[in-house]
């Protein structure tokens, strides 16, 4: 089975080992340590880590399409945000009549803007199962339609990158519009419960953190499964010599579409888990610059390695958290400098550094180096 294949693989075992160990340790330190202990992990930290893990899952999704399929998506934030909105809509409906205006059905912002009834696309989001399906379906469907059009017409390279960017940009502007019924610029906030658990308790936070960790593990295994399967090799084939793959009988557009949709769904899940943890979803998640930043995490971690994406996402965001607190006036220098230094001195990202550490071992198949073709000028 393609899904169990990666479990036999050393790198995946290590990755999962580290991830689960981290989950366990954090949980233990949070639950069992007294609050004044130096080892105590506060709920704040737990949520923070949960957020990093969401970003990590998003980065893995991006790496899947970029690293292995050569599709530099500058719009993955869109799928992330849509997943987030689906979750946000569910959480919004869970507020019920506890909103400021006490309307049992309409969210506050709708009352506020004189909406009389719930728009049709909000229907069903009061049910968890429906919302959770939409978390997968909405981004998946968008990716399917968008990808179908784009791959069918063989849009590649920067052209594809830019239309993904246009997609997320257009969605951002659309979601900014108050008429859209998604809360405009303010987005959705003031969440209370998820599945009946109070979002403002530490236990729920810990639960979400663990759920995110598990989602990341599953997402990672799925991606790893794809890339170690024959389909993964076909993806690389499509990335490097599209025409050749086609002449071998592979439907390059289908391959691309499949992987793209899977990736979009993973991004959607990441977004859905992100929202309850940060407590807000708003259109800035659609911002093209955010999507570019995600790509930067992946590049920094090391493209086409998957675990590199995780490292990149966690590292950059951790750096951000620390720098914005420690050196609020100068953190951009540090972050920008980090990007520059990594690119210049670590051509294969941090994963490349790790890989060169354990040099001597046979190169694993299925983790090919990023090609050095001039994609951008093609």
């Amino acid at each position, binding site marked *: 089975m393609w899904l169990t294949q990666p479990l036999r693989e050393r790198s995946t075992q290590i990755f999962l080992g580290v991830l689960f160990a981290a989950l366990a340790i954090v949980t233990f330190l949070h639950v069992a340590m007294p609050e004044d202990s130096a080892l105590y992990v506060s709920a704040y930290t737990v949520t923070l880590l949960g957020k990093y893990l969401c970003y990590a899952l998003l980065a893995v999704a991006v790496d899947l399409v970029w690293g292995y399929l050569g599709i530099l998506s500058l719009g993955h934030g869109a799928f992330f945000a849509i997943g987030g909105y689906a979750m946000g809509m569910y959480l919004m409906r869970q507020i019920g009549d506890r909103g400021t205006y006490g309307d049992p059905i309409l969210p506050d912002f709708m009352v506020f*803007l004189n909406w009389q009834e719930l728009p049709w696309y909000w229907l069903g989001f009061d049910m968890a199962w429906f919302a959770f399906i939409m978390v997968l379906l909405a981004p998946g469907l968008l990716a399917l339609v968008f990808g179908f059009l784009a791959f069918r017409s063989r849009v590649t390279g920067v052209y594809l990158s830019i239309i993904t960017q246009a997609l997320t940009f257009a969605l951002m502007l659309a979601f900014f519009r108050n008429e859209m019924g998604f809360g405009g610029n303010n987005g959705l906030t003031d969440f209370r419960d998820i599945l009946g658990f109070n979002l403002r308790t530490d236990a729920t936070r810990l639960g979400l953190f663990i759920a995110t960790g598990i989602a990341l593990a599953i997402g990672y295994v799925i991606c790893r499964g794809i890339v170690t399967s024959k389909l993964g090799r076909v993806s690389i084939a499509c990335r490097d010599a599209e025409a050749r793959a086609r002449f071998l009988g592979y439907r390059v557009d289908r391959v691309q579409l499949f992987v793209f949709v899977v990736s979009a769904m993973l991004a959607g899940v990441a977004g859905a888990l992100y929202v309850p943890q*940060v407590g807000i979803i708003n259109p800035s998640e659609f911002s093209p610059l955010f999507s570019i930043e995600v790509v930067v995490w992946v590049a920094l971690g090391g493209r086409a390695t998957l675990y590199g994406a995780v490292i990149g996402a966690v590292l950059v965001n951790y750096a*951000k958290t620390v720098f914005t607190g420690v050196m609020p006036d100068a953190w951009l220098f540090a972050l920008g400098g980090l990007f520059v230094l990594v690119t210049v001195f670590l051509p294969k990202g941090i994963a490349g550094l790790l890989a060169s550490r354990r040099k001597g071992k046979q190169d694993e198949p299925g983790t090919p180096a990023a090609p050095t073709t001039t994609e951008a000028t093609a």
Partner: protein
Amino acid sequence: AEDPIKVGILHSLSGTMAISETVLKDTVEMLIAKQNAEGGVLGRELEAVVVDPASNWPLFAEKARELLAQEKVDVIFGNWTSVSRKSVLPVVEELNGLLFYPVQYEGEESSENVFYTGAAPNQQAIPAVDYLMNNIGVERWVLAGTDYVYPRTTNKILETYLMDQGVAKEDIMINYTPFGHSDWQNIVSDIKRFGSAGKKTAVVSTINGDANVPFYRELGNQGISASDIPVVAFSVGEQELSGIDTGPLVGHLAAWNYFMSVDSDANYDFIDQWIEHTGNEEAVTNDPMEAHYIGFNMYIEAVKKAGTTDVDAVKDAIIGVSVPNLTGGYATMMPNHHITKPVLIGEIQDNGQFSVVWETPSTVAGDAWSDFLPGSRDLIADWRKPMFCGSFNTATGKCGASAGEMAAEEAE
């Protein structure tokens, strides 16, 4: 000595909002320095804890949590945009913090833990419209704003208000633009056309931030002068003007509760202090800075009154506290956590300052819930016991759900 009182500062120092928010960080730092020079409060020093939420709304929530949970600050001064406040709100409520919010906003909110020292719509928009209607004789209105909640709400309130005043629907034009909109050609041309119907026309602008510069430039270039179609802005202050060549804008208006040009000793002292603090002769002050000035002093007074920095004690103590504002009067914290403010209308001058042309005869108390919105007409907020409610419905006599829940938690 005792531990210092920790003051969290939650203003964006990078990203799109840095333009507006950095000065607020500096302001609070200045106020803290001054307070410490005067011996702190309750014999304790004050200490600023600065973080950068980087104009990123989820990050605001995260940083607020960091301030309250990790840094254990006693009070937070921060936020600019409504969305950042909305993002932070659940966090301050959950961790029972104190937040002083210094910017004019759309109202429709009153939190137990937040003190709104900027203007509510009734402290800015409505008086400004009154002025245009009564003193300038405006009959036709363009409500132009950036497409987000503050302009939406303000315009909604104004529309209702104007229609109540007998303005016909076709005499109101409403227009929304995206954030950072930079190409105003069509819209200004529309405004020009709208204004050529023979009736005196004015633009009420809730255009936000960066979009203003190209907007005013286009106004000037298309030959719309203040004497012709005046623009009254609610988001353009001295800070924004410092980035605009004000030559062509002389005479356009803004409504605020403070202008740097206000002729009062408190203001002059404040300006001197600010210039000294920044080391820049050209440094300007603006309304949100005054709001922080007031908020900070109120906090100090409340701490003195309560004799502790304990959040609940301060919350109780601060209602009713009066401190001088910078325009020569006093600001009082009302039970709804809004404050009393004078409303001033200023005209832009060529030196980047406003000259006050009109002001309310006395201060106006901020309304948490607008009288001109159907959903909130009956709501009031009062954080004194026994009512202790952010959205009390006077019609049903019940407290809104959220506040009820909080009160219940409180009781436990």
